């Protein structure tokens, strides 16, 4: 009985040690935020590039969706990405908020000023990129 007790003791000690080790030194898990960072960078690059190409107002107009789609298709052709545009406060048109279903995404806006026949108009143009489900 004395011998069996020592086995039980060592088993209990072992279990306590094991639980303590797992608790205080958890298994290494890989967590990288790079895919999120690259997605953010892509959105910023694209928004900046659209502005450099002087196409912000053109792409913001609701009737020019095909032009915007052509640009995005050409730019991100080989990549499995979903994109959308958002336009707020553009004079003479309703806000465009067409966010598709995505698993993970990022969007950013640029504030632009346009000189129209009715005067200066300040509006927000945004694009978003995301990964499909």
């Amino acid at each position, binding site marked *: 009985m*004395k*011998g*069996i007790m*020592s*086995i039980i*003791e*060592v*088993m209990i*000690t*072992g279990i306590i*040690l*094991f639980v303590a*080790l797992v608790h205080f*030194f958890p*298994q*290494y898990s*890989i967590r*990288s935020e*790079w895919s999120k*960072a*690259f997605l953010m*960078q*892509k959105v910023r*690059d*694209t928004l*900046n*590039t659209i502005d*450099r*190409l*002087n196409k912000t107002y053109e792409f913001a107009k609701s009737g020019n969706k095909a032009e915007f789609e*052509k*640009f995005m*298709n*050409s*730019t991100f*052709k080989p990549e499995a990405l979903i994109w959308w545009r958002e336009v707020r406060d553009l004079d003479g048109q309703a806000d465009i908020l067409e966010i598709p279903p995505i698993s993970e995404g990022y969007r950013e806006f640029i504030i632009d000023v346009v000189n129209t026949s009715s005067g200066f108009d300040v509006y927000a143009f945004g694009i978003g990129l995301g990964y499909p489900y």
Partner: protein
Amino acid sequence: MKAQLTIQYLASFIFFIGLVVYVYFAYSANLPKYVEEVEKEDIRSKAYLLSELLVNNPGEPSNWDEVIPQNWKRLGFADQHSLKQNLILKSKIDKFKEEFDCSDRSDFTRLQQLVGVDRPFSFFIFNISWEDGSGDRLPLIECIPPMMVKEEINVTIRRIVAYNDSGSIKLAELVLQM
């Protein structure tokens, strides 16, 4: 002496040693994975830094495409006149092509010194035809080093930019592999 070393004591001792060995192997098995992740982080950071330098920095001197190559201290393609992000100059692209043959070892070593990166890397700048909707890529720069070792850890970064071609702004993409 015989009474001190019982079979129960021996079993307990073996069980304990087994447990210690299991815990050691369970943790040490993660070490190579951990080292690989650290290396990946390092390469990604360097690749991103280099892409940022090429896209958003004009270089030193900022008009390096107009001065003699002996005076170049750092390379960058950004347009120093506008100081806008994601806008590079075609004249710098042309000057780069004129000056560097990346497949030549001495040229590539000089390029590495000018961008401050000791690892081998390759980079490309493509013109993108988007107005016709084709998305065709025409290479403006193809810089492939003489000995690009295919490693397990490989990072590719794509940056969308506009470039100024004598006043005409066009769409391009910079692809960097490290």
